[in-house]
């Protein structure tokens, strides 16, 4: 049953050093506020899972929280590289980050399989790609009916998933609207889950088939206004595309990154 906590307390309670953490949001509703709280609390040795690492994981990697990254596309969308990710992978700063790399289709299926309680996902994927040569978690099985060779990947079952959504009601039921990505799957696949929301309301006003995650399938709800910024929340605020472009300059250099982190994360207090 979802408990309403401060973001500080939710992260302190559910994100342990060394945990496997999925913070999802497919370009939309990216849980930046929660990511910054994880940085502020100095979590270490995290295995981070995310289809599109985006700026949020660039920041967590640059801040030294991350031991391993499982992902399928690691760039600054429409802009270029994630410089902190590259610096960690190419030069080992602030320390070496191990990577495990998939395709989007495989990760999406692996979340789906995780939500479905299965140990594996089966897909028609990775045909002719070199990715199976560098990721030993990609295997192939034979269909017992047709003999077709299909890819199999382990399902994703994070220790904790963190997502951001538009709103929760007072029972902790959450409405996600717009580009819903793999958020519902990430929450259902995880042992524990934190959902940050723009606001808590009396009535979700959801249509019959809306994407609603029941409160009893969530561990903690934390209010984080503009919690997806500089990403966006459909119906609340737009994506700050200019900041995504500016990040290219900020993150290119270790000092300017550190200065940004100091000012915007460590000294930004955060929801308490």
């Amino acid at each position, binding site marked *: 049953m979802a408990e309403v906590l401060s973001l500080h307390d939710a992260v302190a309670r559910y994100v342990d050093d060394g945990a496997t953490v999925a913070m999802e949001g*497919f*370009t*939309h509703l990216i849980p930046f506020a929660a990511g910054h709280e994880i940085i502020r609390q100095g979590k270490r040795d995290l295995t981070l899972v995310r*289809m*599109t690492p985006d700026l949020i994981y660039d920041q967590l990697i640059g801040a030294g929280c991350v031991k391993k990254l499982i*992902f*399928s*596309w*690691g*760039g600054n*969308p*429409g*802009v270029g*590289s*994630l410089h902190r*990710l*590259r610096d960690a*992978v*190419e030069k080992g700063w602030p320390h070496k980050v191990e990577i495990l*790399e*998939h*395709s*989007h*289709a*495989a990760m*999406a*299926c692996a*979340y*789906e399989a995780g939500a479905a309680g299965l140990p594996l996902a089966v*897909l*028609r*994927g*990775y*045909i*002719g*790609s*070199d*990715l199976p040569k*560098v990721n030993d978690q990609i295997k192939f099985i034979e269909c017992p009916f*047709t003999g*077709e060779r299909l890819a199999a990947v382990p399902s994703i079952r994070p220790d904790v998933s963190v997502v951001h959504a538009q709103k929760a009601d007072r029972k902790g039921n959450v409405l996600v609207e*717009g*580009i*819903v*990505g*793999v958020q*519902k*799957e990430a929450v259902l696949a995880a042992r524990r889950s934190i959902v940050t929301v723009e606001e808590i309301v009396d009535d979700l006003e959801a249509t019959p088939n809306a*994407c609603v995650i029941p409160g009893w399938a969530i561990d903690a709800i934390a209010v984080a206004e503009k919690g997806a910024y500089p990403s*966006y929340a*459909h119906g609340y605020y*737009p*994506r*700050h*595309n*200019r900041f*995504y*472009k500016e990040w290219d300059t900020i993150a290119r250099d270790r000092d300017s990154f550190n200065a940004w982190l100091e000012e915007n994360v460590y000294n930004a207090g955060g929801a308490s």
Partner: protein
Amino acid sequence: MSLEYTSAEMMTVTAARALENGTTCFVGIGLPSEAANLARLTHAPDVVLIYESGTLQTKPDVLPLSIGDGELCETALTTVSVPEMFRYWLQGGKIDVGFLGTAQIDRYCNLNTTLIGDYTAPKVRLPGGGGAPEIATNAGEVFITLKHSRRTFVDGVDFVTTLGFGRDGKGRDGVPNIGKGPTRVITDLCVMKPDPETKELVVVSLHPGVTAEQVQEATGWEIRFAEQLETTAEPSEKELEVLRELKARTERHHSGE
């Protein structure tokens, strides 16, 4: 009458023309997205654009910066989850054309968006596969568009992120339930198609003013030219106007908050 246009505009217009009206197209971000939306705003109003963020049949007024800008959802027929997108719509065989960009391409249209150098000690780490590996095999056919240079057109990609026709051109032979693969590559210099037999890329059309030597110069292997080498049709006034307005709108939109 000859219009003024850049080689980038020539590339986008030519790529746009490749998309027929009514086609369902799984759109990659960047150049493919620009071309696909130009097609939609000119000769192909009923082209169905699908982005991997789950937005089905979207009609953005400005080009998205990311694959999941709010604009895509707001103008979509509907938006589905990302697992559904990859399972029902792509793998389910509903996509006619996958439209991709790439960092490196080789003579057999294999694409590398993973890294330059060695996997364990990369010289340059690129973003990775994203949707491309399965778009390239599950879509009916694949169009590829990118700028032509020796950095991008290489004699053997460093890593096959995404299958074209394999290192020997036979990568799709005998594989069940696989799309036709790349059927054309559009650059700022020319249009190429795979040889029907060997699958090696052949230049079939040079853009106006471009010479075969220029193309060879920008290609990392000895590239073949079709016997009947054509000249690509120039952009029309209408196409250029629509493209420039689209890019200006986009620029204004993205430089704001």
